[in-house]
């Protein structure tokens, strides 16, 4: 297992997670066969054949349709477990049976997406390899040293070439440790810092009036807002960052060209997260750093995702009932499943997801699972979601199936060629869709429109179109067999000045934002504050050895670390009489977890940090304490608001 040196982004290297792939494909603990659990959560599993699995699933779907007049009681929860385009076949399969209920939205990044959609029209970032051209780089609420190690090469290279690296984060992260300047900010007050900086830039005439005149809408209104509402003293008090630091930061940022801001997903997981991103975007715009190599306000991009979605786009069978799919909020999944009426939800299909470890309000999610007639989960390993399923289907790893992958950060595309036969009885999502379709049609002709056969490698080819060929400079998808390809142009976001907002300009003033219930300007929305009963903020950021529920269960990761902990500042620990490795109960009104304390000055004194992860064989799950509080934005671009994961207020006690 190694990286492809043909990619100038990875430069032939993998991250720890990538190197550990071999530990899943040949793990003796993989899910090997379709199995049925007698009693959800009982652990009493029977091995069944694929045919038995398909028959039970198909019969349940057909019975539901007969009883309720549509397949709306069938609900799909599928998301980011594997973003290989072929996995969208599972959405296609659900479409093929009729109208269904869909967990809609994204848990990770919706508030930021909406913010940039209001400002720019959509999310587009510069090619991350372009970071080397930056002269000033603020990494704001992101920890690439853990979560985007390939990007760190470009950060360090920029630094070597004289770029000043500033890290802004409530946590003194690994990335912050490598920065030239670290600014510890009070969690969720990022917008106040950005607006304070903006006020300084405005007052000192450091903004780019020409750029604003040519490219923006609402700059005057924004400046008016700054003058009337924002002071540096206020920003300093709000953020905990001394005023002179804000001034220096603002001056350096505005006067060093090109200056770049990398906006992390962590800082938008708040009830004011989207507004905070809009305020940061405004900084980049007012200084004329948008559309510049080495500049920008980098969040993410979906520019390279122009596939046909051939596996996904399917016709619904005629007269299958219902007037359209029903969307429920993926970020309040448990409650929305339980609350769905007319018709109720009776069956869940889980793919590429682990709701019981990853969703907020775990106890509610479990109740939703308990209320179902049938829960089907396609997965690679036993985990708490599989534990609460009736049927588990063994799913292929990346090595065992063809596919194609792009990124929402870099601009490369890679063909995934099948390297080995699927181990045991594992199958790809598209194969499952085809075979289930055959079973449904066998039991009731015309009940499923999904094709019942097809060559998977050819299906990968069917995802491509002329637009993709042109964008990547390839004559056909087979060209990718020679190696990965990078998009040929548009690698500097908004260089053409053609913003995709209603006005075609960068919008400080966004009527679209107002339409969605937000203030039209990037304003400061008060951060959530603790109540006296739960005085501490708990943030649950990404851990370095996993992606959500994946990877931490593998033996290599387990060897490095197999114990979650509560990171707590020494002063806070002293207040609660907590010493290193003491067992601590962290609780609020919805749940609790017990875990050992790790005393650390890397966390602020008023905040505890518990990295989100699923540890094999451990009862740990921080989401037992996380409420499904919506972030402020996300509805426009993703269908549902995000989750304010980091607005989790708790109390602690030594136990």
């Amino acid at each position, binding site marked *: 297992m190694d990286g492809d040196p043909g990619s100038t982004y990875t430069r032939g290297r993998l991250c720890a997670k990538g190197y550990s792939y071999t530990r899943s494909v040949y793990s003796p603990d993989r899910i090997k066969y379709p199995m049925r659990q*007698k009693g959800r959560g009982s652990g009493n599993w029977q091995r069944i054949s694929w045919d038995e699995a398909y028959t039970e699933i198909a019969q349940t779907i057909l019975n539901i349709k007969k009883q309720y007049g549509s397949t709306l009681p069938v609900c799909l929860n599928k998301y980011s477990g594997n973003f290989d385009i072929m996995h969208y076949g599972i959405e296609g399969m659900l479409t093929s049976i009729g109208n269904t209920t869909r967990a809609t939205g994204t848990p990770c990044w919706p508030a930021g997406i909406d913010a940039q959609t209001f400002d720019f029209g959509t999310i587009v970032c510069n090619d991350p390899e372009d970071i080397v051209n930056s002269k000033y780089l603020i990494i704001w609420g992101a920890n690439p040293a853990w979560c985007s190690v390939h990007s760190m090469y470009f950060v360090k290279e920029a630094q070597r070439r004289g770029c000043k690296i500033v890290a802004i984060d409530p946590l003194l992260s690994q990335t912050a440790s490598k920065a030239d300047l670290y600014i510890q900010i009070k969690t969720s007050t990022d917008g106040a810092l950005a607006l304070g900086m903006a006020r300084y830039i405005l007052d000192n005439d450091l903004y780019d009036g020409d750029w604003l005149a040519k490219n923006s809408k609402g700059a005057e209104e924004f400046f008016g807002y700054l003058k009337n509402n924002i002071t540096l003293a206020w920003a300093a008090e709000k953020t905990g960052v001394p005023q002179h630091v804000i001034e220096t930061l603002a001056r350096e940022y505005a006067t060093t060209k090109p200056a770049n801001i990398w906006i992390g997903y962590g800082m938008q997981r708040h009830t004011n997260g989207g507004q905070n991103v809009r305020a940061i975007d405004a900084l980049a715009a007012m200084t004329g750093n948008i559309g510049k190599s080495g500049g920008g306000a980098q969040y993410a991009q979906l520019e390279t995702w122009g596939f046909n979605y051939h596996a996904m786009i399917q016709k619904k069978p005629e007269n299958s009932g219902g007037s359209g799919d029903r969307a429920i909020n993926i970020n309040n999944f448990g409650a929305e499943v339980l609350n769905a009426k007319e018709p109720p939800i009776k069956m869940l299909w889980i793919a590429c997801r682990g709701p019981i470890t990853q969703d907020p309000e775990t106890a509610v999610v479990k109740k939703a699972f308990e209320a179902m007639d049938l829960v089907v989960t396609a997965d690679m390993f036993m985990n708490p979601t599989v534990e609460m399923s009736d049927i588990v289907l063994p799913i292929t790893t990346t090595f065992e199936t063809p596919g194609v992958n792009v990124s929402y950060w870099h601009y490369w595309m890679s063909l995934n060629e099948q390297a080995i036969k699927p181990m045991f009885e594992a199958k790809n999502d598209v194969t499952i869709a085809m075979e289930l379709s055959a079973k449904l049609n066998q039991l009731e002709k015309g009940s499923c429109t999904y094709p019942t056969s097809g060559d998977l490698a050819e299906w990968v080819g069917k995802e491509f179109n002329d637009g993709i060929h042109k964008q990547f400079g390839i004559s056909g998808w087979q060209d990718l067999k020679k190696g990965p390809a990078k998009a040929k142009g548009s690698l500097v976001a908004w260089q053409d000045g053609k913003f995709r907002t209603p006005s075609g300009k960068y919008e400080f003033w966004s009527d679209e934002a107002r339409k969605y219930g937000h203030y039209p300007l990037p304003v400061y929305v008060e951060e959530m504050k603790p109540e006296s009963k739960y005085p501490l903020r708990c943030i649950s950021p990404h851990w370095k050895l996993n992606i959500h529920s994946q990877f931490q269960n593998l033996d290599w990761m387990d060897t490095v670390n197999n114990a979650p902990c509560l990171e707590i500042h020494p002063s806070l620990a002293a207040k609660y009489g907590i010493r290193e490795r003491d067992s601590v109960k962290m609780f609020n009104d919805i749940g609790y977890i017990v875990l050992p304390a790790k005393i650390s000055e890397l966390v602020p004194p008023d905040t505890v940090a518990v990295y989100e992860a699923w540890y094999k064989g451990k009862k740990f799950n921080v989401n037992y304490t996380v409420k499904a509080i919506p972030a402020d934005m996300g509805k426009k671009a993703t269908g549902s608001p995000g989750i304010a994961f980091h607005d989790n207020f708790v109390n602690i006690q030594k136990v």
Partner: protein
Amino acid sequence: MLQNLRCEDIAQMAERFQLYNLLRQYFHNNSLTEQQIEDLLTVSSQVAGNSQEMAEGICLLRHTRQYPESEAEYEYNTLFVGPGKLLAPPFESYYRNAERTLMQRETMAVRAFYTRLGLACERLNSTPDDHLATELEFVCYLHAKAGRFLEKGMLEQACLFLELYREFFNAHLKNWIAEHCQDVLRQARTSLCRGMALIMLGFFRQEELRLELSKEGFPWIINGPTQDEHLLKGQQDQLRQ
């Protein structure tokens, strides 16, 4: 004299074949019928000798007449099938490779052994070649071949298969079955899973000793084992008989 020895060994070999075959079915089919348990009890008693483990296993198995009973089936799956972390993975490489993963060097060595006889796994590259059910099936195959040659009085050919069995046993089965059975015994509660593990543990210990004692050659062979393997060339029998 030769005739008497041969008769005795054909009978013993048939017993071994029968036991291996029942063990194979246990690991291959995830279940044993009542009749198979009866047969297992009979044949185990015949080969048990002084084995304390086998005696204990037989005793436990006598309490398991209604298999598949659900409790034993669920336990069997937690030990050998999944979907959770296996408590006693039935794969040689898990026990013998430091990586404790599947499809490792040991798996390929088993594959190479099968290939010497023109054999290949039905689910090649999907089910590891060193799955216990497959290794047991291979041993059954070797016994069946040896038995057929013995019946026909073709001693040298029979000997060749018995030597192959000894070689396979020593190179593979011997090196992991005991640990595997101990894993089962540490975790299992049902009389079926415990009983089977004890019978297997006792039988393999006994077999190891027997093969050690007969390493100078099997007694019915006057001229010793032949190196001539031409009978095997072009053998395309699949493992499943």
